[in-house]
């Protein structure tokens, strides 16, 4: 497993969850984590650069382009390029508040996922029912054995479940009948 912090300087910090000086102003806004001070400065940069580009273009275009309508459209184009420039400047100054880990899923983790899938779908299904293409794909990805073992475990567990299920069903229909 290889750790790679988006901000190299912070990688040396011993405890990540303790909230060092750089991590006191973190908030979740619009689906991701931001630093509130960085965000305020970024918004200011975005506003100044985009509007600056737009108004500068508007002044220039009116003298350069014949039709006022086209001048307005070009000013908007420059304004939108200004938005991108503002974003690029902010990206340059403020690094993402994300930690990106690069790793291969390990076996124990995969088994947990298979267990979650079983819980969600009720059954994993039988490998014997798969088309040859899907079987080949599973073998190539080295997932075949994982699903085969999970299927074996599921089939072992099933008789117990099967004896419970009908009585549960009956109870539901009984209470349903009374109402």
């Amino acid at each position, binding site marked *: 497993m290889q750790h790679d912090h988006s901000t190299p300087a912070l990688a040396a910090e011993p405890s990540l969850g303790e909230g060092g000086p750089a991590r006191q102003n973190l908030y979740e806004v619009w689906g991701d984590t931001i630093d509130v001070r960085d965000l305020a400065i970024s918004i200011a940069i975005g506003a100044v650069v985009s509007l600056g580009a737009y108004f500068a273009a508007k002044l220039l275009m009116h003298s350069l382009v014949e039709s006022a309508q086209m001048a307005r459209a070009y000013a908007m184009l420059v*304004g939108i390029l200004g938005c991108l420039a503002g974003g690029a400047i902010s990206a340059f100054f403020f690094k993402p*508040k994300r930690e990106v880990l690069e790793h291969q899923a390990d076996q124990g983790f995969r088994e947990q996922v298979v267990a979650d899938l079983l819980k969600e779908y009720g059954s994993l299904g039988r490998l014997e029912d798969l088309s040859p293409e899907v079987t080949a794909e599973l073998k190539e990805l080295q997932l075949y054995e994982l699903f085969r073992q999970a299927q074996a475990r599921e089939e072992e567990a099933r008789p117990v479940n099967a004896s419970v299920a009908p009585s549960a069903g009956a109870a539901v229909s009984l209470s349903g009948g009374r109402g």
Partner: protein
Amino acid sequence: MDALLYEIMVAFALGLLGAVVFAAIGLVSGTDETTTLAPLTLLVVLLGAPPAGVLTFFLAGAVAKHMTHAVPTALLGIPGDTAATALLADANYLRKLGVPHIALRKMISGAAVAALIAVPLSVLFAVLLAPFGEVIKQFAPWVFLCAALTIAYFSAGRWAAVLALVPFVMVIVALQALTGQYGVKLSVSYFLGIAVAPLIASLFSLLAPAERQRMRRDDYRVFSLAPDVKGWSGYFPNPLKIINPRQTRVTAMAASVSSATFVFSPVAMTVIMGEIIGSRIKHAYDRLTTVITARNGVTESTYIAETLIPLMAFGLPLSPVAAGPAAPLFNAPPRFWVDNATGEINNLHNLLNTGEFLGYGMLAVIVAILVAYPFTMNFAHGAAAFVARRISHEAVIATFIGLVLVIGIWEGGLLGLMVILTIGLLGGFLARFLGFNIGVQFMAYYTAVLSVPAIVALAGS
């Protein structure tokens, strides 16, 4: 002949531009389709691009974006855009199984197959619906009202969303009356306000102490990026070899069905088609991969059908996509317009014929596939790592704030800006607390513009 060749070349060039720009935007998570497609398409319209070029720019952009949005979704577990939220659960299972590259390849192959099928089918449905076009145009105000009510009822908010239409429409009507007093007529500002509403609501919440406490995070968000695996040689792997014959069949079927149901929201259709397909597949792995293939196919087919069918058959933005991301194809004053009073329509509907819609539609899809498909296949890992490590969320927000300021001031000066702010804050909170989603808000705008005058006229007579 030369004129035709010239037009095709311009359409090709704009399609290529759209595909490249939106393939890049698709990599950045949180870049909602409406927020990005609508303003850039509007710009292309206002700069005077020929009708065919406007169509190829928009379609190639939408198709390319819905391919590259698979990169953050599959590799990082963050939805690339609004449509990708419907793919996240399946993508996460495959990522945790250690095979995110499979999720990615299946998604973009499904997208390519569905996009190619959706164009001719949409044209076919549009031709079948066209005879009813005149009737629908006559009753357009009432059609929009019914569509708004239907879409509201089928949103997460159900009856709350239906009732919330009343105040939301009233606010739009009131704002229009206000800006009208100063001789300012706005449309794009309303769209942008609705599109960035969640961001505006988030930023306001950040300023309120109690809400801010709830948004607090103690640490950086952790993403795990799966390692790079390349399973083929060459630059352009055959999509039909990446998805198996059944996945191709199911995707084609889902694309066909979702092309016909063009009045429903793309996200809803993506979820529903996935549920229907998934319930018929027994094995968990087969189910995950087949559903994710078909679902991403549906994100393409809904966007194509919901743009082409209303555009060709009616010339009126009668679908959630047409009302939102594709709005500038219908309505971009002073160049394109839908006049309620006279019933006059001047947009791609009358500027392109059926053959041109089919030809340029296919051109756009093919260009988008040629750009986005091999790019995603070969460089997904590097692109995802770059975006996650170099593009901060602050920078993304700053870009959108810049967009709001420029578009608002461009369209209506300070009044435009105030309208974006008002609509954004109201729409954002209604969406968050009542499930009054973006699709309903767009339909509310059209209700305010087209239906309200008809209702007032009826009440007055």
